[in-house]
């Protein structure tokens, strides 16, 4: 019996000739990523060593990445002190893949990892963030864990007791219509599968539409795979993966793309044709409450957010800027833009997109998670409505339990910023 991509990756990382669904394996970890919650990982890690007589030592400091993004710059003395504690740990342990609060190398963890070539096809990546699924875009098996599981990985260098997950094959065909793209595809898929339709499973993406999709688009769909409950999304590495890693991430060493066997076994196959897909909107308060835009047109919006690990990359900003150029954000609506990394911010400056946003009346913020998780920057007022390119719309998500969050693509967000109501970008 052939193997899926994730089965192949796990077999290799666990030194086994093959694995099958349900096998328990302990794969070597190629990359272990954390953000501010490294403050908790450090506590748990230190507790592991207590009473052992063994001096605490991380298994491989070159394979640990820590990126500050959730609350940057710090919104509170508590966060600032967490940052300080993590910096001390990074220095003491020789961790080199560290991205502090900086305007040159800072950014959101799920953008920094691909951007700096930290993730390669075939890697096993764990991250203390549910959207660690993003890195499946580069052909890695990449999944979210809690802080204690990360502490265990820091100490042992393996992911303990991993059950090989079943895989759902998603085959996507057709060419996106104008103003429709990867975000609409993944929202549509989440609506089809439901929020728990892929719980404990992997989404493996195939088809001509995926092959022709940029790495940026692939990151968006893998990023949101977790919103269907998926352990990971994955696009088997291909020519685009190699191009991205070579040309954009500057990787020079060998790249080994892992592909599934033709006779691999899938628990389910889902086929989607995007050629007639409309812009999709996830409505409050669940990501699987997805509707075509026609059903929500005209809903007044007080806050527009463009950014996040889902849709804060250069192509997202370019598409939004093209719509806003020479236009104004509607009175009564505020628009916030968060480039996904400092590098993207600088590129958007060079390309003039930042000027387009500012002249339109948008506020451009530093790279980071911003208001996506409701910690700081851009909280909603009571009963306010946000339209956002981020990935979650749970009750209270944007900092106010009476607020409502609709999720959409960058072009829908930009078109709606001009009118102040949810607007179809195809009719601009």
């Amino acid at each position, binding site marked *: 019996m052939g193997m899926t991509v994730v089965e192949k990756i796990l077999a290799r990382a666990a030194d086994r000739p093959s694995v099958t669904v349900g096998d328990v394996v302990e794969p070597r970890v190629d990359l272990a990523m954390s953000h501010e919650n490294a403050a908790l990982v450090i506590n748990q890690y230190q507790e592991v060593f207590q009473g052992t007589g063994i001096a605490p030592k991380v298994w491989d400091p070159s394979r640990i990445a820590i990126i500050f993004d959730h609350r940057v710059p710090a919104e509170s003395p*508590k966060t600032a002190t967490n940052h300080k504690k993590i910096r001390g740990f990074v220095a003491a342990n020789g961790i080199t893949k560290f991205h502090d609060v900086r305007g040159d190398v800072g950014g959101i963890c799920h953008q920094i990892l691909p951007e700096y070539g930290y993730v390669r096809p075939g890697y096993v990546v764990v991250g203390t963030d549910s959207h660690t699924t993003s890195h499946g875009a580069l052909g890695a098996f990449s999944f979210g864990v809690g802080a204690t599981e990360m502490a265990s990985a820091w100490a042992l260098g393996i992911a303990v007791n991993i059950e090989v997950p079943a895989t759902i094959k998603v085959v996507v065909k057709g060419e996106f219509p104008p103003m429709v793209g990867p975000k609409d595809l993944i929202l549509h898929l989440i609506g089809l599968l439901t929020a728990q339709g892929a719980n404990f499973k992997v989404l493996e993406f195939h088809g001509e539409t995926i092959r022709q999709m940029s790495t940026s688009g692939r990151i968006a769909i893998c990023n949101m795979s977790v919103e269907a409950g998926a352990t990971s999304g994955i696009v088997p590495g291909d020519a685009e993966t190699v191009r991205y890693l070579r040309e954009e991430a500057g990787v020079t060493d060998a790249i080994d793309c892992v592909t599934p066997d033709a006779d691999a076994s899938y628990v389910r196959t889902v086929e989607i044709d995007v050629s007639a897909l409309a812009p999709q909107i996830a409505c409050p308060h669940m990501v699987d409450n997805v509707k075509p835009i026609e059903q929500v047109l005209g809903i007044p919006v007080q806050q527009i957010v463009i950014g996040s690990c889902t849709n804060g990359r250069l192509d997202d900003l370019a598409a939004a800027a093209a719509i806003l150029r020479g236009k104004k954000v509607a009175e009564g609506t505020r628009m916030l833009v968060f480039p996904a990394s400092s590098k993207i911010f600088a590129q958007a400056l060079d390309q003039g997109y930042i000027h387009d946003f500012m002249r339109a009346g948008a506020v451009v913020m530093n790279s980071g998670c911003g208001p996506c998780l409701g910690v700081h920057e851009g909280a909603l007022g009571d009963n306010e409505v946000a339209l956002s390119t981020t990935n979650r719309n749970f009750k209270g*998500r944007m900092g106010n339990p009476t607020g409502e969050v609709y999720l959409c693509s960058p072009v829908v967000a930009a078109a709606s910023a001009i009118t102040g109501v949810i607007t179809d970008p195809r009719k601009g």
Partner: protein
Amino acid sequence: MANVIITLGNDISTDDIYPGRFMATVLPTETPAFAFFDRTDFNAQLKAKAFPPGSVIVGGENFGCGSSREQACSTLKGYELAVVARSISRIFLQNSINLGLQVVICPGIEASVGDELELTADQVLNRTTGQAFDQVKLPAARKGIMDAGGLIPYTRARLMARG
């Protein structure tokens, strides 16, 4: 025997259990203050220690969906609550096992606030209604961690075995 203290619907997210704005708080001694913070009355009852250890939260499908934040488990563990839900999101389930929070997957569970539940090895017995519901076994892969009393003691033992 323990009482149901709240019944919740489907897709209870980690933002509901432990809102993102308290994520800078990480210590298990401090996170319980923010459990279900935006459910003001329930949060107040929890903080007032209105519920004895072992009290049960009954959830629907996909309990604990969303973020990987471990605070969503430590905040409930702090009160020694148990969660019985129709299904549980992967990361929340694993975090619960890792921290020793008692979680039970029980697809058919029907219970109301105040009902007395007994959690046996493979069933949930509603002593108030007389109904019995089968549990879904937790992932066998995680048995070693459960037997060790959580992932920290488990990892510690693995580390010491390496010498």
